[in-house]
């Protein structure tokens, strides 16, 4: 086949893949899926880290991208467009990286498809968070390193930190690779890096001044002691989260076999491949040690870089027939683990569905909640929203408001989250872990809002039924 025809076919395949993914994404209703998304939406219209608008460290690149879209759209839709387009960019960027590293158009096209098929793609595109843009910047960096465009590679690294500061570990690993193996190019990368980070830093600083530092200390200590500490803020371990992501033990075995194949065939002596492997390992260690296992999207760089490395391994396999077989097996594995859990009926996020239900209740109901507290405060101000992080205070609310019904909105992760929505019969009756005292309260689930795709935490609204551990009500 002629080169021009091959190029046209590749381009057509890439556009087709992106269009198919875009069509599915556009069908999804827009809504606030989490407090973090609310903070970003606020940040688009008024930036101040102290006001959680957005939360620390500020994510200036993502907020500015949202602001660019806000010339045409309201802040919520602007942020939705920003996170969706950044995630869709993963496919062409991965294609460019793999093609620059291997010159193999077919395998680069497979890698692009894998970006859209991987289980975290819907989560990156629809969570209204900065993960998609951060991963896109990592792929852009690898492509530019493979092309030896060192100044622009620095720009991509700077954008990566500015979009997703928790990818600082990836950036440090990239700097480590550069310092060890590409020292003469270091200054050019540093130039591009600073060209982005200095204006971004000033943008953050102009909103809060020195108060930003105080908020930073509070937030970082809170991250390591509460919401980022493994086993403190999450409802499951990373082991459980990983298994659910790869489709249980059989899926995990498939993933391990593919990982072993990739490790055997990749060429670590190439700059971009070495950088990808080191960044992936560093980010995996950081995520497992210092991130909340309820949010598997934190593993997005590991999944994306892992698939990119698998594509590079396929290109270097001396037996093309085996490479084709492995590629097909990997595609089947991705399709099974990624899309088996997807709810193909377009629905708003679980939190938005819960808000819609709470709006139908009479005003001034007591709602205990640990997930999406600020979204509820803003979206249903007519209800009494109680932050159940303060467990004893929440239990005091339940005791004192005996004359009024009290509701408990709680997160449901893992297998439970995919259960049916219909609980009108009040079938479930579980002990609610809200008391923190010697008389646990009981609740009866009245509505369930399952996650729409892998990685999205579902919610359950329950009516609190007074009782004790001794007398379980029915």
């Amino acid at each position, binding site marked *: 086949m002629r080169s021009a025809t091959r190029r046209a076919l590749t381009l057509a395949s890439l556009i087709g893949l992106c269009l198919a993914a875009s069509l599915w994404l556009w069908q999804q209703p827009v809504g606030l899926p989490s407090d973090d998304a609310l903070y970003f939406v606020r940040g688009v219209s*008024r930036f101040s880290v*102290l*006001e*959680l608008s957005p939360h620390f460290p500020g994510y200036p690149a993502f907020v500015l991208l949202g602001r660019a879209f806000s010339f045409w759209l309201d802040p919520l839709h602007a942020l939705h467009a920003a996170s969706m387009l950044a995630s869709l960019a993963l496919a062409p960027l991965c294609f460019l990286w793999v093609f*620059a*590293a*291997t*010159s193999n158009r077919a395998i680069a096209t497979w890698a692009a498809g894998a970006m859209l098929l991987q289980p975290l793609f819907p989560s990156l595109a629809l969570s209204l968070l900065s993960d998609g843009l951060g991963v896109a910047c990592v792929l852009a960096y690898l492509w530019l390193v*493979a092309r*030896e465009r060192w100044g622009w590679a620095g720009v991509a690294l700077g954008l990566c930190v500015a979009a997703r500061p928790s990818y600082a570990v990836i950036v440090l690993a990239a700097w480590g690779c550069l310092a060890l193996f*590409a020292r003469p190019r270091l200054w050019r990368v540093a130039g591009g890096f600073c060209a982005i980070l200095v204006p971004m830093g000033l943008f953050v*600083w*102009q909103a*809060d*001044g020195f*108060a930003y530092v*105080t908020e930073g200390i*509070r*937030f970082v*200590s*809170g*991250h390591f*002691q509460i*919401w980022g500490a*493994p*086993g*403190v803020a*999450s*409802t499951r*371990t*990373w*082991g459980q989260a990983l298994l659910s992501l790869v489709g249980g033990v059989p899926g995990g075995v498939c993933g391990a076999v593919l990982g072993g194949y990739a*490790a055997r065939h990749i060429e*670590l*002596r190439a*700059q971009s491949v*070495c950088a990808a*492997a*080191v960044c992936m*390992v560093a980010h*995996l260690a950081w995520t*497992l040690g210092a991130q909340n296992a309820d949010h598997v999207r934190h593993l997005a760089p590991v999944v994306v870089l892992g698939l990119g490395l698998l594509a590079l391994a396929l290109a270097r396999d001396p037996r093309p027939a085996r490479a084709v077989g492995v590629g097909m097996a990997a595609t089947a594995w991705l399709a099974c683990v990624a899309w088996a859990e997807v709810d193909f009926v377009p629905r708003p996020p679980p939190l938005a569905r819960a808000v819609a239900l709470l709006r139908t209740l009479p005003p*001034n109901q*007591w709602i205990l909640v640990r997930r999406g*507290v600020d979204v509820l*405060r803003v979206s249903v*101000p007519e209800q*009494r929203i*109680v*932050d159940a992080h*303060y*467990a*004893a*205070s929440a239990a*005091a*609310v339940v*005791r004192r408001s005996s004359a009024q019904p009290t509701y408990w909105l709680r997160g449901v992760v893992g297998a439970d989250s995919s259960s049916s929505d219909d609980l009108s019969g009040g079938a479930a009756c579980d002990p609610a*872990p809200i008391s923190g*005292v*010697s008389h646990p309260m009981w609740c009866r689930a009245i509505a369930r809002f399952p996650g729409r795709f892998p990685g999205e935490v579902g919610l359950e609204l329950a009516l609190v039924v007074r009782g004790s551990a001794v007398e379980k009500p029915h």
Partner: protein
Amino acid sequence: METNGRVDPELSRSSKWVHAFVIGVAVIVLGVGQQAYAYSYAAAGAEPLIEAREATLAALGNQDIEQARSASLAVVEELQYLDREFQKSLADDLKSALEDRDSRRVDGVYLAAFAVEIQRRLTAAGEQLDDYQVAKSLVVRSKRYFDLLAPRMEATARVAGGEALRSCLAAIGNPGVFGVGARAADAEEFARGREIVLRSLGSLVF
């Protein structure tokens, strides 16, 4: 193909270390973890009154009166300060409620103290509008108390108070960078917002 960007040949040896590291991390972390629950970002940062209320109510729930007294002891000085400055009797009320082991009254005293804290911080912020960092920190921290009190207010007061707090934040202005993008504080707007917040606290039901 990536031909020019070659690295030191010794690097190929590092691949073994990469594999060993991945496996090691996975083994360690897969085995660690326990059941726990979600969070809100307001949970971090020391607010002694909020922490004392939580610890005291938890101890009372467990019928541990000594623990409850000990938890409240940490904020007695702060309550006495509020009593002096705002002509209240929070410290005595708390002592009496603890003696009666009445958790509802104890909660009420703490919530009343939260309301006085909001008043204190907004007043102080209004007096220090020329110091951007101090003023903004005071308003932001008063919002943590407001969020905990909001469920005890009537819906209209809750909405009005929340909006007024946001207008207070906007009225503080902005320092800018080396004067660029700076916005001066608006004392009148701040005072208006403060009044609405304090009025909304009047609808509290303990």
